[in-house]
């Protein structure tokens, strides 16, 4: 079982990283989402695997062996937060798409003035600001 889970993590990570290396927003977002899946499984797996031993008490104190509850609690919130973050990135990418009419996420030198890379002039000292000494 451990081998299978490790293989799942590996495969999901591979698909995720491959998609993240694409140039369009949609596959990258899907890739991020997949990556959060695989990382969540990874975190869950750090607690060790167990079958039929959910972290539910049957008496006031634990009497039977049970799986580690802590990674589960951490992963539970991580799953929900990942969704929130994915949603933010989705809306941001939609905004970028509506404004630039393209879902490319890197700066294309041929795409026109809007996508020109930010030059140093934007953050450097404006000579006019310096004035006389």
């Amino acid at each position, binding site marked *: 079982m451990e081998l299978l889970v490790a293989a799942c993590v590996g495969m999901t990570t591979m698909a995720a990283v491959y998609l993240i290396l*694409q140039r369009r927003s949609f596959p990258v977002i899907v890739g991020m989402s997949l990556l959060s899946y695989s990382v969540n499984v990874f975190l869950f797996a750090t607690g060790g695997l167990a079958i039929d031993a959910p972290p539910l008490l049957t008496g006031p104190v634990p009497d039977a062996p049970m799986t580690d509850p802590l990674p589960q609690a951490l992963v539970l919130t991580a799953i929900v937060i990942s969704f929130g973050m994915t949603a933010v990135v989705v809306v941001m990418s939609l905004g970028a798409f509506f404004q630039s009419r393209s879902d490319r996420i890197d700066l294309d030198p041929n795409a026109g003035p809007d996508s020109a890379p930010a030059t140093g002039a934007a953050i450097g000292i404006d000579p006019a600001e310096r004035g006389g000494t």
Partner: protein
Amino acid sequence: MSPMLIALLPFFGALLPGIMARSGRTVAAWATAVPTILALTGLALNLPALMAGEAVTQSVAWIPQIGLAAEFRVDGLSAFFAALILGIGLIITLYARYYLAPEDGGAGRFFTFLLLFQGAMTGLVLSDNVLLLLIFWELTSLASFLLIGYWAHEPDARRGARMALAVTALGGLAMIGGMLILGQIAGSMRIGDILAAREAVAASPLRVPAMVLILTGAFAKSAQVPFHFWLPRAMAAPTPVSAYLHSATMVKAGLFLMARLWPVFAGTPEWFAIVVTAGLLTMLLGAAFALTETDLKALLAWSTVSHLGLVTLLLGIGTVPAAAAAMLHILNHALFKAPLFMVAGIVDHAAHERDLRRLGGLRKLMPITFVLALLSSLSMAGVPLLGGFISKELMLNEALSTRWGGTDWGLAAVSTLAFILSAAYSFRFLWGTFFGAARSPEAAAAHDPGAGLWLGPAVLVLGVVAVGLMPMLAAPVVDLAASAVTGGAVEVHFSVWHGLNPALALSAVALAGGLLLLLAIGPAMPRRASPFPDAEAIYWRLMEGSTAWATRFGEALQSGSMARNSAAITGATLAIGLWGALTGSLGPATRGLVPVSPVVFVGWLLLMMAGAAAVVLHRTRLVLLVFVGIIGLMISLGFAWLSAPDLALTQVSVEVVTILLMLLALNFLPKTDPVEHSNRRRLFDLGFAGAAGLGLATLCYAIMRRDPAFATISGYHAENSYVGGGGWNIVNVILVDFRGYDTFGEITVLGIAAVTIYALAQGLLKANAVRTPAMEAPRAGDRHPVMMIVATRLMLPVAMVVGVFMFLRGHNAPGGGFVAGLLFSIALLMQYMASGFAWAQERVTVPYHGLIGAGVAVAVATGAGSWAFDLPYMTSAFGYVTLPGLQPLELATAALFDLGVFLTVMGAVMLALASLSRLGVAARDAERREG
């Protein structure tokens, strides 16, 4: 009144003027004056204790681990400075009320900044802890940035504000280092302890580095060479600011600090060498530059630099009489320089001109202003019977008795030279402004202002005359301050006439020399050609160099290709992992393998195939989503199989909303990915991705086969889940009880994310930018099929009951707020999908933002509830109640917290998806409009 309250009053008061800005300048000024008067009264209440020679201290623990405490101290020195700050602050408030133009409109903002600064400055001088002092120190830099840049529309103001901030804050950084070293040596961050640790400091090899770092900060703040250049540039500030910050208060912070640490450092050869030299050089340079300026405020700024140098020099000499003279000159300088700045402002107002070359003849036109300027500038020149004369005499006496530069007379000679220049520029200020004929039509039409503008400076000028005629009046004040500086009882005797002595002769030489020099160069003098390296030019070279370097660095890192950045991050992570794998060691496997059943194997196979297919077939985006759905579903089944029922429930519901979200997005985006990468590049990507996957898989496997190296805290959670938290479901108890703070933070983040999405969507709607691309495939004919409508509406109550059930049992069985929130959202989303956005939105009675807010509020309130029982925040309690007809129901406060989670999750998910849906509606409307 407690010292802490004195320091905090201006901060509390700072809220008022901003709120009352609309009621006009008078109300805002009163709102500024009241907290100042209160603080001043509070200070006065401590006077009896001070006169008895005690220091009033107060300590409130803050972060005891690093020695940071809100420790305040009112002793002679801090009371002296605090009285100057608050007293002159009051006068400046009156002056600013009439100085600011009615159409300025920013009076509320101005007075708020003024109070912020006043609070920071008062806190600085009252601090009894170096860390606290550093905090106030930086606050004064920030507040002065806001004040200098008050007229932000003027480039000069922005430039001056930035320069002042850069120089003083950089100095502040050096000082932090120095103070920390000093605190380490003394073994305490309390100033009282540090002052008592002179022997320990003297014995430490780190004494000189600490001293140099602290002096760097003090010199930067007090505009000492080589940091002198920022002060004249800060003259772009409104004149009340210059009169306040740049004559009486902020620039004196460095002097204050040198005086405060005087017992620790003074008297050592390094202190003498550095401080005396810097002071002397500053005194001379400032006076020389002042003589060449034609702008009234710039002249006064350079003169301030020069006088600050004088006080620095006195503190550097390191004898008790010199320290007393320093205190007296701080008082004198505040008394004459603040009115001079205010006079410059009055002249500027009346003649619309600050240039000496275009002023003149105002003596007859503005008699009141003339008298004020006459008395204060003669005091600046050191003319007898005025305050400045007394401290200058004392200073020359000290200079004559101090050996410097290998001679007994060197210090006195250079000082006298500086005083000649000082007298010359003082006379020139008077001559150019008030004597002769008016040199411009505006100056000829000037007249005295109303009492509001001249009353404030007049009060201070009264002080100048009082100290000059009866210096014994100032003696108790100087005694108090100097005793606190030197740490021993000091008793000074001031008198107007010290008899014929060498100091008097030098004074006479200075005044006569100044007069002659002025006659020689005339009222207007050509600009300087400085033989020294220009410190300001060096500053600009440094600034430009570092920005250019930062730009190059940034451009090298951020090439504009997201893929390259992602690859760099992945590559770096891989490299670190590889390094760890090659250098680390791996213990033997301690855990057995869990057996695999055939059904599980089939599920695994599905997941692996879906992963591979996602890579191969990702160009058709809808198909990609199908594979993601399979992966997510298999993961949730895996969670269920591997004893994580809560995770399974969460994962499967998140899976549903994620796919819905992606589908909504895909509605707008192109449906396919074009081929953009060469085969080689794709192979590279695949290899890269494969390496990442292999790495993570190996790591995962290695971890799963081994027990943790250290005992985990999981056992504690399991044992106390029921006993302490009253729940059978340990995961849920961890979420809402043990780690309640984390969960609270997480739902807050979720809420913020949802509101962000709403705001982004709103922006897109406002910009009217939302369009759907031309359809590539025909749409389904029926937008809202009846069968789906009926099914979803029937399912709604059922789904909601399931949700409530999941919520209620969450504490004891798989379920809880997260899952219930997601289930409710899905049930509602089904309505949106089946019946249409408009139909569903009409029936929403509670806005989703409200749900988020209510959720977070419920969570906060639950946590705060434990305060009512004198328990720490978020302590939970539980008990059982039996509702008729139901099983005994456990009611834990944690369940109430879970309700907060539920509301937030539901609100956030709904707000996020509803925002996206609104975009869809807008796109359809736009399509319809455009035909």
